Each structure stands twice: as structure tokens, then as C-alpha cells.
């Protein structure tokens, strides 16, 4: 099975406190710790496991710039067979449909049985996978938390729905699935693994290589544009308990007694 996994390099929200830039139109990007978008990492692990069991190859792709190569190499160190970088000045400012349009062109250049994305990017909205599928006329399923390969060009999949319940479906290949965190346990990638793929060539494709109309992507093609960032307006907000740790604990004990949590 030929599998394409779409990944993103994003600021790691568990490692960073996100602040606004002084101009207010972006977040402060200096000194941010970047990593692969968490659900995308689960998608790559799932692809590697499927290819190991059913045979085939795993290609990881990202739309971005040279800086984003590091996440491709990280996923190649995990076990993806190759990486592809889609990069062009014309791609800057793409909305979800723009990214899906760029990825569609790559999918049509190759022969992929299965295309995986992460469920959602830290700065995205769970859109690219479903849009890509619709552009390709492939079936789609989101929030996938289990995959079984069946005979006859089909998969059995489980979707995460409310209350921890699982919606089971059968889906024909080729298809696009967006992968939910927790589907597997992504393997650890050490520095040694990353060094081993450090010099592997990563092909880069732009609009002309892909046959993408520059007017359909980037700022030119975007119907959805972020105008500015702002800090969320605090609601009433928590009363922050003050004092020494002992005093804070005493206050907390009294509060819990009053609210029925301690008796």
C-alpha cells in the first residue's frame, strides 16, 4: 500500500507560552520551540505500521519552507521512506482550501492508496483532510482512532464520537483519513535516527512542478484570511489564592469544605 501522510511543523503549545507580537498581527515567533503537529505524528506512526503489515511505502509531505524540512526528517527517522517539501512563494497565505489544492496536485502526480492527515493543527481547524478528499472525490473519514486493512481494497475504520463511543465503518480505497491522537503509541526518535537521514535528499516542488495555478492558492486564492491575533478576553476568571503554600492549602481546605468536597 502506498501511503501519503501530510504533516505540519507548528509551535509546540505544551512547551511554549504563546504571546502576541508587538504589532499584534501575529504571535511572537522568536524563541518558539517548534515540533511536528501532534496528531500528524500519530498519523505517520499509523502509516508505518500499516506499511509494515500490508507492505508498501510511506511518504511524508509538508507545505512550507526550508525550515519545515526538519519535521520531514524527523518523520523519516521514525520510518517514513521518503519526504517531499512543497514550497513556493505563491503558497504563502494559503487558507485551508489553498493547502488542500496544493496537496491534491501532489496526490495526482503519484499513486497513493491512502492519504492520512492529523485531525487538527494547533493553528488550524480540522479542515484540510476533508477538503482534500472532496477535491479528489475520494471518500473521507475524520477522527479515526483505529484502522484494519481488509481484502478487496477496503479498510475497516473506527471514528471517535461522543462519550468514548466508536463509530465503525467500511471505507473504499483510495481514501483520505484524518487521524486522532491516541490511535497508537508513536515510536521514540533519537538523535541518532535523525542523523542517519540528515543527508537524504528531499525533493522540493513548486507551482510549476505541480501544475498548480498560482492564483488558486496563497493569499491570491484565499477566501479566508486571519486579520489579527488578540488575547482572549478573560471571563470572571479564577480568584488566585495568595500567600505561602501552607496558607493557600488552608484556604483551599476551607473552600472545599464549604462546597461539599470535604467533610
Amino acid at each position, binding site marked *: 500500500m502506498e501511503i501519503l501522510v501530510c504533516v505540519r511543523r507548528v*509551535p509546540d*503549545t*505544551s512547551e511554549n*507560552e*504563546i504571546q502576541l507580537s508587538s504589532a499584534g498581527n501575529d*504571535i511572537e515567533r522568536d524563541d518558539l520551540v517548534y515540533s511536528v503537529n501532534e496528531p500528524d505524528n500519530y498519523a505517520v506512526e499509523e502509516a508505518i505500521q500499516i506499511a509494515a503489515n500490508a507492505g508498501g511505502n510511506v511518504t511524508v509531505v509538508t507545505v512550507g519552507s526550508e525550515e519545515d524540512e526538519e519535521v520531514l526528517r524527523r518523520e523519516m527517522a521514525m520510518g517514513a521512506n521518503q519526504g517531499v517539501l512543497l514550497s513556493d512563494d505563491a503558497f504563502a497565505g494559503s487558507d*485551508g482550501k489553498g493547502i488542500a489544492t496544493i496537496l491534491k496536485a501532489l496526490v495526482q502526480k503519484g499513486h497513493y492508496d491512502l492519504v492520512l492527515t492529523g485531525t487538527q493543527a*494547533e*493553528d488550524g*481547524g*480540522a*479542515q484540510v483532510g*476533508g*477538503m482534500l*478528499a*472532496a*477535491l479528489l472525490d475520494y*471518500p*473521507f473519514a*475524520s*477522527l479515526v482512532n483505529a484502522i484494519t486493512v481488509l481484502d478487496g481494497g477496503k479498510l475497516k475504520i*473506527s*471514528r*471517535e*464520537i461522543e*462519550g*468514548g*463511543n*466508536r*463509530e*465503525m*465503518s*467500511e471505507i*473504499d480505497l483510495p*481514501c483520505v483519513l484524518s487521524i486522532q*491522537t*491516541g490511535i497508537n*503509541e508513536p515510536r521514540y526518535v533519537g538523535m541518532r535516527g535523525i542523523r542517519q537521514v540528515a543527508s537524504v535528499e528531499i525533493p522540493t516542488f513548486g507551482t510549476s512542478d505541480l501544475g498548480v495555478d498560482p492564483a488558486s492558492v496563497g493569499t491570491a486564492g484565499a*477566501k*479566508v484570511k*486571519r*486579520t489579527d*491575533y*488578540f*488575547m*482572549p478576553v*478573560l471571563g470572571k*476568571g*479564577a*480568584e*488566585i*489564592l495568595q500567600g505561602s503554600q501552607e496558607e*493557600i*492549602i488552608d484556604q483551599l*481546605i476551607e*473552600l472545599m469544605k464549604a*462546597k*461539599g*468536597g*470535604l467533610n
Partner: protein
Amino acid sequence: MARIFAYIAHKGGVADDSAAELAAAAKKIDAGASPVAVVTGWGPDLDAVCESLRSSYSEIWKVANQAIAYPNAELVRQALVNVIPRDSIVLVPHSHFGIDLAPGLSIKTNSAFVSDVLAIDGTDGTSLKVVRQEFGGQVSAHVRCDISSGAIISIRPGAFKPVESSPLAGVMVDKSAEVGALTAARRYLETIVAEAGDVDITKQNVLVSVGRGIQEQDNIAIAQELADALGGAVSCSRPVVDAKWLPKSRQVGSSGQTVKPKVYLACGMSGSFQHLAGIKGNPFIVAINKNPKAPIFQVADVGVVADILEFLPELTEKVREVKGISV
């Protein structure tokens, strides 16, 4: 001004809470709007839902088709593409179903798509200005969306308060004949109901709920000791389940359990909206997090800025002392 449609999610003949929230969101786009409720399904359940909406929507489009008796988003999308006129604004809930439906619907209707919207600033007729959150709710963003060829907007559950208004006398319009042929390369098989866990977190007075800040599996014991002292249980947020440190049955949130304790100790978690959606009954929420900017402090009643790995054992000690528990 484009017509506004609201996709009504429903189950067992009852409309989801999002039905009223989408009506409220439509009013934020255009205060004079009379949004149309679109309801897909089959049989008596569908009829019951449509009837129940007549007091809150002035027009209800009933789309009956046996193939979408179960809401398989791949089939529902095809039906909506055929039924809803081009250049409309379509509101859908940002739920597990909306996430499945909305992106593809926007492509097939050549509409703009904005997902997970939590506020709407208004429209000038050709563009719509909305608010989203990014980076786990740490920052918000204004987004401008070109609606000249329609838009699909997914609305965050709970973000829009239903508006009180005098009951309407909604008109029912049967659009079933416009559905056309439905074929899906994805076929629904069954729903597997979550297994009950060893501890039922939905029936506890006190929950000590841990997030990523617990750092490793061995540290769960720290939370368990506090829960034991308080006579409660340990629950958690999604990253703890993803890491396999606790079973799925301990997860609070829209994709986990809905809990209604008296006191909820949110320990080392950011407080994502998916997590908060699982906390009902207005409990007293105590947030303990070493990051003073963690979004959880916006919704908690009281907050403690501290490292839970140091703070929780001290709290446990004091609780034991107060209750006269010796170990």
C-alpha cells in the same frame, strides 16, 4: 444578504442543543435573519425533530431519505449539496459530525469554510468577520471570510447562548424529492458503546483530574492519594489517555465522560473546550497549574499557581490531617 441555513443534529427524535445555538449564531450574522433549519433523517424520529423546531425556526426543511437514517456524513453531504441553494451561509455544529461533514461540503458548494467559530462580529454583505481560537485557546484570532459565493461556518458547541424569543409558528417544507441518488464509498456498520471502567467517574462528588502536567505514569499515584483522602476518584484529560497512563473511561470531555461532581480539581491541564464540555452541573472548579496564563484559570473558581507534583502531596497531607486519616 445570503440566506442562512442551520444543520440540525439530532438523535432519538430529539434535536441537539446546537439547534438553538446555531439560531443564535445566525442572529449574530444578521439580526434580521430568519434562518432555515435543515433536518435530514428518516421515519418518525425525523418527524418528531422537525415538529419540535417549529417554535424556534420560522422555516424547517425536512429531508427524508432512508439512506441517511443514520447520519453518515458522506451521504448527508451529497444530500445537502443537492438541497441547499448555492451562495448560502450554512451553519453546522463543530462536533464529531460537523468535523466530518463541513470541509467537504464547502468544496462541493464552492463556499468559503471557517471552522470552530466562537464569536461573530458581523458582516458587510460580502465578507463575514468571526473569532476563532488557536494554540489550544492561548490566543484568539479575527478571521475575515469572503461570503460572496456562500460559506460553511462550523460553530463551537456552547459558544453561543440561545436567545429567548416568543415562539414562532415554523413552516414545514418537504425537500425530500430534491435529494437525488446517494452513494457512499464509506458505509456505516455499527456503533460500539464505550466499556465501563473500573471506577465510574460520573458518580463522584470529588474528582482529582490530571492533565499533561502530571508528566509521567508513576505520578498518577500522587493524584490517587489525594483522591483517596478526599473520598473521590482520579479523572483526566485527553493527553493522559493518549499516553496510556489512564484508561479511556477516566477521560472527561466531549469524546470522554460527562461528569457532575461538587468539586473538580483541575491539576496540570490547560482546560481545552473539549475537556470543559464534559464538566456539567456547575461544580466548584479549582485549577492548579504552574503556568499562570493557562486558559483553565479563565473558567475555574479559584486558582493555585503551583507545580502539581509539589503541591498535591502537601494538600493530601493536610486533608488527611483534617479528616484524621493516618497512614
